[in-house]
């Protein structure tokens, strides 16, 4: 059971109040991109053991999208942060580093 805090409305709820929205910080490759880039954008998602950055939606609540950094092994939530960003903020990175020194996820560390 994951306990998430929505950064939009401040509610702390358990995961059935939310809905997972897949991998975070995707960069869109649309018209003009190569077939390989478009394929990877659609299908090549990471499924790490450990630190993972995801999008979530507070669907049984305020209805807003946000980001969450969590651990797929320990199920702990390192933190949640607004959807309006293309990378995890420093305080989230610090929270992850405190538990998992040397972590990396895609291009972030």
């Amino acid at each position: 059971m994951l306990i998430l805090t929505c950064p939009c409305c401040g509610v702390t709820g358990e995961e059935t109040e939310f809905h997972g929205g897949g991998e975070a910080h995707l960069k869109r490759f649309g018209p003009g991109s190569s077939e390989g880039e478009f394929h990877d954008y659609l299908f090549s998602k990471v499924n790490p053991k450990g630190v993972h950055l995801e999008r979530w939606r507070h669907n049984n609540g305020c209805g807003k999208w946000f980001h969450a950094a969590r651990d797929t092994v320990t199920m702990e939530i390192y933190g949640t942060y607004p959807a309006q960003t293309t990378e995890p903020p420093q305080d989230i990175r610090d929270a992850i580093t405190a538990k998992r020194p040397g972590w990396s996820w895609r291009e972030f560390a």
Partner: protein
Amino acid sequence: MSNMVSALNGASAKGFVEVRDMGLQGMITLRGDLNAAKLKKAARAVGGADMPEQGHISLGDTGGAAWMSPDELLVLVPYTEVDARLSEIAKAMGDDHHLAVNVSDARCMFGVSGDDALVREALAKLMPVDLSARAFQPGQFRRSRMAQVPAALWMQAEGEARIVCFRSVAQYVFDLLKGATSPGSEVRYLAR
């Protein structure tokens, strides 16, 4: 003129606490910049209550306003006054970006009343929310789910809860509440 009735037309059930359809309730969804002075003023005038804080509801004599999300309020007004209140909002907001819609007939309101702790226990069976008197106090407003459907909840007073859900699931929610309050099913966790 057709005879307007709420989803369950005032149905009620008496278990260890009482569940009832609250009848026709005027509800207006008001979306926009909740920090804008104009919107605050319109919400106060129409709902007849202060602007609610995040996660709260403020109630006046005939209505109120609930904080739904960072850009949405649910304004409660008497059912027969909705159209007049919508005109007031339109006039007050002018060309400023906003959305105000009559959702009265798209929603349903229930009341659960009785011993405060037993009311909380009944609702806690259905919602993943800490409903202890310490954690959830009158004035707080919580959107969550009730079993499989979205629902919003507040305590109108001690021993008096209000639930708003979609009209399309009114019977489902009523049946849930009826089951959760059936005599003999008290959990006695919050109630001693």
